[in-house]
């Protein structure tokens, strides 16, 4: 086939709008305000190790909670009647269609000191508890916004697990735990790795969620980058350096995940 030329417009576009911008990020990160080469920005990023560590930490916790929460749900969904499966799938996808800012805003109103949850607690004679402006609130916001990204890939691998295989394992004397460890878990591994990356990457780089739910103490990498470009400490060179660190973090995770799923993946399940 001589159709390779058909991809020319895209290749041009890809180089101009994907490759060149990333090179520019590296260029800005390695130059100072005067345009000369410097490593100062990159080494300045170490000042923010606390923020970076906290971002990674909160994102890891959120990802684990998503996994623990989504796994049984995806499994029970996959064992429903086909008609019900479709309904359940729609129910999981529906909230994703509402902009995440609106969903996060909804949690803001629920968690406030004078919000609905604290009012209910007040009726029971408890509280008011400090719910918003905590790390817990940020993790909750991440879990709520990104858990569908964990449920969907898990569900899609679990529908492919043959019920017969489970029965066979049981017939051969495996108990529930044994079936889980030896059959279900290994077969759902690709879904787990996809889910982890799809939750972790947006979680670690978020800025709106921490801004809305996190209060003054919970600055994250995303906030830091936003501050350098559009916020109150204008310094695109430092911002680019932080962006590079974030990219390296994410690429590291991706390559770790790829150790498990190395077959060529095309077309993600969204």
């Amino acid at each position: 086939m001589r159709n390779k030329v058909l991809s020319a417009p895209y290749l041009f576009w890809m180089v101009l709008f994907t490759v060149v911008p990333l090179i520019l990020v590296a260029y800005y990160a390695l130059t100072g305000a005067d345009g000369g080469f410097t490593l100062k920005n990159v080494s300045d990023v170490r000042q923010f190790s606390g923020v970076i560590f906290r971002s990674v930490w909160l994102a890891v916790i959120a990802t684990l909670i998503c996994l623990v929460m989504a796994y049984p749900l995806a499994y029970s969904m996959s064992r429903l009647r086909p008609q019900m499966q479709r309904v359940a799938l729609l129910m999981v996808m529906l909230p994703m269609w509402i902009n995440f800012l609106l969903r996060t805003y909804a949690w803001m109103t629920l968690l406030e000191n004078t919000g609905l949850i604290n009012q209910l607690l007040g009726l029971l004679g408890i509280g008011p508890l400090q719910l918003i402006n905590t790390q817990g609130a940020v993790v909750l916001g991440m879990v709520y916004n990104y858990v569908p990204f964990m449920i969907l890939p898990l569900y899609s691998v679990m529908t492919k697990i043959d019920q017969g295989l489970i029965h066979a394992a049981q017939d051969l004397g495996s108990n529930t735990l044994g079936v889980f460890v030896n059959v279900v878990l290994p077969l759902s591994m690709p879904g787990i790795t996809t889910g982890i990356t799809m939750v972790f990457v947006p979680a670690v780089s978020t800025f709106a969620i921490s801004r809305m739910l996190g209060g003054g103490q919970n600055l994250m990498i995303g906030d830091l980058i936003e501050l350098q470009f559009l916020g109150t400490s204008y310094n695109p060179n430092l911002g680019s350096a932080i962006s590079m660190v974030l990219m390296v973090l994410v690429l590291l995770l991706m390559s770790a995940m790829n150790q498990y799923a190395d077959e060529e993946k095309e077309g993600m399940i969204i």
Partner: protein
Amino acid sequence: MKHLSRIYTGFCMFFLYLPIFVLIVFSFNESKSRAVFTGFSFKWYQALFQNDVILTALGNTLLIALISTLISTLIGVAAAIGINAMNRWLRGVVLNTTYMPIVNPEIVTGVSLSLLFVFMRQVLGLPIELGFMSLILAHVTFSTPYVILNVLPKLRQMDKNLYHAAMDLGCSPMQAVLRVVLPEIMPGIITGAFMAFTYSIDDFIISYFVSGPAVQTLPIVIYSMTRKKVSPEINALSTIIFLVVVGVLFISNIAQDRWAIETRKRLN
């Protein structure tokens, strides 16, 4: 066990829908309070429909989504056909770069594109300004990969001989692509275009970095609304979006069912 799983599913659904439910209830609240329901009223809906900023932003969002979907579908389908014809090594390189906007944190993509536009204007002297143009360019950039990645598998599945057979029967390569290949990969194109469209409508982070004074999209307006005195208009907006989404999913599901029944009939 079955009960347990039902209860658990119910709990998860409760978690997913509780905030949305609260938003909807309070969109009908008479007062501005977010915690006390003082009375039933439609006034926030009225306010919303008189809010020019939101209505213009909605128009912009839809227009940008339509144009960028069109461009990215055209570029993406052509690219997929081209990539499919590449040798293994080249394909690997192109595909890995294609994955970049998908796996890269959105904020990095946004920042890098904003740097590109600044660079184009300040260093190359191109008259690029943040606004409609930059938003379209950015949206095409992040949605084209979804089109490509949805079309490629369909191309793989397609019988290669179909294309050659078409040529043997007198088609030019272009005709062969248009008349034989395109219909085969149509489902992939539709899914890809649909994903491009939804991502474009929903995108906040990248748009936030490349938007200018004249053109704001709905997510950007929503964000700035949460940064100021919040009006319950935002709840009314969420409710309407929710109802529209429910409606669209409902209709598309009915359509799917109909289609499935029709095909079964035809097969019989």
